[in-house]
């Protein structure tokens, strides 16, 4: 069985679903002949033709509005925003229409569409190519916000997103697009949405994260283990609707929690998790909840971007503070 990267898993999922469901079409800028600027749609136009892998005019609003229209008329469109920093012109169609159409029409019209976007920092890219803006979408009712963190989860969650009857924002952590390969059978098996994945069991502290930061959290757990600290690592994967039960169960067990994300701290999605912990798990907590996040600044241009992104060192220090507190 072939070993593939996260981005190859995206391509594999798209191809699988396009082979098995005529309603699935891919649209965006450069997704056709060029196969996408990251090559996520590599080879798809050759296989499925120009009518199903559509190079659109260079206008994000157009892509987003077409996607709503396609989905409303029975297609299963997968739109690509070339970078998460270019998704803002799409937001009107996502927030005002995709997320509300089912509610607005009492179920008469639905928008089963996926918006994919390479997401997050750490690839030495120009301005607007490195943002973590998932929290701008998690406050929109009627949407799902999904972030895979491995090739297998990218494949399984993207299949689930395309099959989901509601709109999904699918943010792909571009920093780990090609970080490593793993075996991902092309068996069409979706992974469940709306659930967290416990990637590593532990007893002393829970590290809660998503996207590329899963890498740093797993490394931090290794570093903590060397110090005799047992860290549990949770990949939230679907931010909304949130599987808080899995997080609560873990934190109830460990009594300590460090939330890690790339986005700015204030009103980032970590704030929601911390608030829920204070509402529902306060008496199980042995230490204040820690957040290791990007800062409340713009992500700097790339000479400084690694100073902005949460590091293994910052995560380890935060975990140690929770242990020092009790």
């Amino acid at each position, binding site marked *: 069985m072939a070993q593939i990267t996260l981005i190859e898993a995206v391509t594999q999922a798209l191809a699988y679903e396009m082979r098995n469901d005529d309603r699935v079409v891919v649209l965006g800028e450069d997704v056709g002949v060029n196969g996408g600027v990251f090559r996520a749609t590599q080879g798809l136009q050759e296989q499925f033709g120009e009518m199903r892998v559509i190079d659109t005019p260079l206008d994000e609003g157009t892509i987003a509005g077409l996607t709503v*229209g396609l989905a409303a008329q029975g297609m299963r469109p997968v739109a690509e925003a070339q970078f998460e920093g270019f998704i803002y012109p799409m937001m009107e169609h996502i927030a005002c229409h995709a997320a509300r159409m089912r509610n607005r029409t009492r179920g008469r*019209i639905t928008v089963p569409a996926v918006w994919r976007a390479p997401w997050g920092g750490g690839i030495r890219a120009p301005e607007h190519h490195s943002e973590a803006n998932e929290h701008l979408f998690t406050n929109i009712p009627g949407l799902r916000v999904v972030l895979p963190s491995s090739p297998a989860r990218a494949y399984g969650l993207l299949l689930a997103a395309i099959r989901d009857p*509601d709109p999904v924002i699918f943010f792909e952590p571009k920093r780990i697009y090609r970080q490593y390969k793993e075996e991902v059978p092309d068996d069409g098996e979706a992974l469940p949405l709306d659930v967290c994945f416990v990637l590593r069991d532990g007893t002393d502290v829970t590290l809660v994260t998503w996207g590329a930061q899963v890498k740093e959290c797993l490394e931090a757990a290794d570093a903590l283990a060397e110090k005799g600290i047992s860290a549990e690592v949770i990949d939230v994967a679907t931010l909304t609707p949130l599987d808080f039960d899995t997080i609560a169960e873990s934190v109830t067990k460990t009594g300590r929690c460090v939330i890690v994300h790339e986005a700015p701290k204030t009103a980032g999605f970590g704030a929601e998790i911390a608030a829920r912990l204070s509402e529902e798990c306060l008496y199980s907590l042995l230490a204040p909840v820690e957040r290791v996040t990007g800062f409340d600044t713009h992500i700097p241009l790339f000479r400084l971007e690694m100073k902005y992104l949460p590091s293994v060192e910052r995560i380890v220090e935060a975990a140690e503070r929770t242990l020092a507190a009790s």
Partner: protein
Amino acid sequence: MSIAAKFEIEYLQYLDQDGKETGKEMPAFAKDLDHMVELYKLMVSTRVFDTKSIALQRTGKLGTYASCLGHEAAHVGIGSAMRREDSLAVSYREYGAQLYRGVKPREVYTYWGGDERGNDFAEAPAHDFAWCVPIGTQCLHAAGSALAFKIRNEPRVAVCTIGDGGSSKGDFYGAINVAGAQNLPLVAVIVNNQWAISVPRRIQSGSGTLAQKGIAAGLFCIQVDGNDIIAVRKAMEDALERARSGQGGSVIEAVTYRLGDHTTADDARRYRGEQEVKDAWARDPVPRLRKWLEAQGKWDDAKEEAWKAECDDWMDNEVNAYLESKVQPATAMFDYLYAELPADLEKQRELVASLDRK
């Protein structure tokens, strides 16, 4: 001098403002006088409906309402040219088109009366879009629909309507641009009623006609007298036929006038003069068609009175159906958020249910 491009925009009118034929050969549908009577009757019923809506709002029984007064020829002309399998994406005042396609007055009242169920059309095509408040966005939903029809090789056309103000939006330009680039079966109708709330047509765009915006997109473009239903209907029929047969999309500018306020929350006296409105009433589309039908011997005062009385009864019945409908339980806000309510929202739903029981 060498010319890189040049263009002209046809203006289409069959009936002048007094209901007299301009001398142009009448299209086939207009020779079916019984059909023309049906169109006239719908224009009248649309106006009766509209009057009733405003009265409901003024008495606190309806929320903010966008009147269609003066747009009846444009709207009925659009709706009556379409096939049921075509899709319609409107903004929020194209009632004449929607009533023709089976939307019930009670559904309009329900939506503007603060209840999402008004958008769950019982008899109108299920693929027609809901009312679309964010200006211009419906144009891209229509373009996406047209793309779906093209991908599936279905002989269907997506129609969107937009105002003169809406034609300034990027979504309008994006929709006609992609329609030209992909040869989509899209018909975009600009219902130019001269006013975008308080902003007049002259400072909305420097474009000589709004129709010609479609030239740059590579679409067929025409301007019609939007108060002449025969002109609107003919331009629509031609555009639909071209789109259906794969010959591409169109932009139709229907020139009309918003005789009422923008919505019931607006007071147009703040920004436009009485004389202008008075002049516009002389171009009122409803008496224009009536005069023509009377000249054809197909309509008279007795018929007018009888039909208006019938419309009154019809609308009273619709109003009653709306007023008698029960408010949804508060938990209805969760019912159509997702196909299935996510587990994470069950607690919130329970809370709402308990508040509703108090």
